[in-house]
């Protein structure tokens, strides 16, 4: 469903990822669909194994071509990234669409200075001299809030703290001013106060550069703080999509509701936490129809039929046949939400 009046920046249509396993293949994500408008901050939320990182990598074209396969469409301003020639796609990476990763220590090349790694990105995409690349790299370091950027240009990753390394990675990703930034759990490995700083930097840069951001995380708190829209994934599928505030107050999918309710901060102190029973199904052994129904308190026989994404009001989508009739608790208990 198209929320943006103008052409969306990113349109993901029924994206499915398959990994080679043994002699056959296993489907890792199924029919992932969502859109992003220019400058929009969207959270892609789910627990481990739900396919959110795979989706992010698929958008960047970073899944190993020898052992993976994509179906569906990824339209970046109308151009399909899946059918694009590899060379053309490579030129997009770092230039129009960038990605930052979770562990900044292992995500940066340890034997090159961070300044070099920024300049290198610049010179790979734009025709600039070494001197100019250096200047712009120093500017980029300053923009992400690294003190004494001219000195830090010559620093190696291991000489920086975790927060600084992540800032350096952001500088690398943003130096060519891409239109879309995919941030895959960028703050999970960082302390909460550093996390706050990084999230701040990201928000500010997105606003200033008019850049869209896909924030991949398992932390609903972070998403509610930074993003305007939210896409929830479970067991390889998108199960809900909509405005963050709407979903927090009135989730339409039992999984979103369960996830919200299990946050400790939202339950009275010392009271029992409402936990979702059961376990996430393993790949290759998915239940028929709705993948969440074995764990769902509201399951009915019709849940074993294939479930498409349905549109709901307020504007959003949900993969649940009972969405229209269920009233689910979100951040507030049910009685207070109405």
């Amino acid at each position: 469903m198209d929320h943006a009046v103008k052409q969306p920046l990113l349109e993901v249509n029924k994206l499915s990822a398959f990994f080679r396993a043994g002699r056959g293949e296993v489907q890792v994500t199924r029919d992932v669909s969502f859109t992003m408008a220019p400058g929009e901050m969207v959270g892609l939320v789910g627990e481990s194994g739900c396919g959110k990182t795979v989706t992010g990598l698929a958008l960047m074209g970073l899944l190993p071509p020898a052992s993976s396969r994509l179906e569906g469409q990824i339209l970046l301003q109308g151009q399909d990234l899946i059918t694009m020639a590899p060379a053309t796609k490579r030129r997009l990476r770092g230039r129009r669409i960038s990605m930052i990763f979770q562990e900044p220590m292992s995500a940066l090349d340890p034997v090159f200075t961070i300044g070099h790694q920024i300049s290198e990105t610049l010179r790979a995409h734009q025709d600039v001299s070494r001197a100019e690349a250096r200047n712009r790299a120093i500017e980029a370091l300053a923009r992400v809030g690294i003190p004494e950027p001219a000195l830090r240009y010559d620093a190696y990753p291991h000489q920086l703290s975790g927060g600084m390394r992540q800032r350096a990675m952001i500088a690398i990703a943003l130096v060519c001013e891409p239109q879309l930034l995919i941030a895959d759990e960028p703050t999970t490995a960082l302390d909460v106060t550093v996390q706050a700083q990084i999230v701040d930097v990201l928000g500010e840069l997105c606003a200033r550069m008019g850049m869209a951001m896909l924030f991949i995380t398992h932390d609903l708190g972070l998403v509610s703080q930074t993003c305007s829209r939210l896409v929830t994934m479970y067991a390889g599928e998108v199960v809900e999509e909509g405005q963050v505030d709407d979903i927090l107050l009135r989730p339409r999918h039992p999984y979103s509701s369960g996830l919200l309710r299990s946050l400790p901060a939202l339950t009275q102190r010392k009271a029992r936490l409402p936990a979702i029973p059961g376990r996430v199904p393993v790949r290759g052994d998915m239940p028929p129809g709705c993948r969440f129904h074995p764990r769902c308190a509201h399951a009915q026989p019709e849940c074993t039929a294939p479930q498409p994404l349905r549109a709901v009001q307020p504007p959003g989508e949900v993969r649940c046949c009972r969405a229209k009739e269920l009233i689910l608790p979100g951040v507030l208990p049910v009685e207070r939400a109405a």
Partner: protein
Amino acid sequence: MTAPQPLVATRDLGVHFRLSRNTVLKAVDRVSFDVMPGETFGIIGESGSGKTTLGRALVCLEAPSAGQVLHQGRDPYALSRRQLRQHRRNYQVVFQDPNAALDPRMTILRSVREPLDVAATMPRAQRDEVAMQAMERVGLSPEFATRYPHELSGGQKQRVCIARVLTLRPSVIVCDEAVAALDVSIQADILNLLADLQREFGLTYIFITHNLGVVGHISDRVAVMYLGRLVEMGETEAVLARPLHPYTDALLSAEPVALPSHMRTSQRVILSGELPSPVSPPSGCRFRTRCRFAQDLCAAKEPEWSEVEPGHWAACHFAGTLPVSSSPLQGVAEVVA
């Protein structure tokens, strides 16, 4: 009526590591607190705070370099080595990474039974029995006994670690980021389990974490650490609702809480600067380099650890007089109540 004796206490506890000829890292520096029987005591800190070292010192995994750790009023290091080995069984720890904590080549049953094997006070059949019971108590069905760690999920592995610790019927369990590596829904499960076990076995928990949401939910009292020292301590509700120390305030403010924007009481305090090196902490108050209220006094004199309000301690020259930002957690508490 005599006051109840703390089960675990520290008196000016220091744990120092000598890094080279002239540098000493004081991972824990003059920390004093009591943990009462049956309570859940939370310790909040970020990286470099020394909380893990403190946790290890509390269960005699690190010997104090200064001060004391007291178990039921007695110094465990005054015991003979053999007595200490027995004594330790009562004070156990569950760590963050269940993968690293389980031997991949031992079946689950063997792992859970291992503390009993080491203690060697029962015949094998009885040890198996106790281990199976512990597994059942943490929600693992008997079929898990013959499986190997790699066949289990993260949450299940953490349950195994808890079962393993339970076999010894300890009085105190230190949980060092025990749920940090788990997904949110699994986390809720494990926290519920821990609460049940506490009720059933009268356990005392010392819960070390950086996650304010978790610690706010399960702790009775909470202490905040920064660069090896305690900066605040008190009843959980008091500390989270009316923090006395600017660092606690910043932590609370930084914690991302899932609330829609119109319900956020939002003044966010963003801490400036970086964590100073623990090897050479700032003079006076260690937090002053990042504190928005820092004055000259803060550099000159280290703040006293004092009871600013009954049961609520803080180490800040201006504790109680500073404007505190409204924490998002506070907003949630109002919502939830």
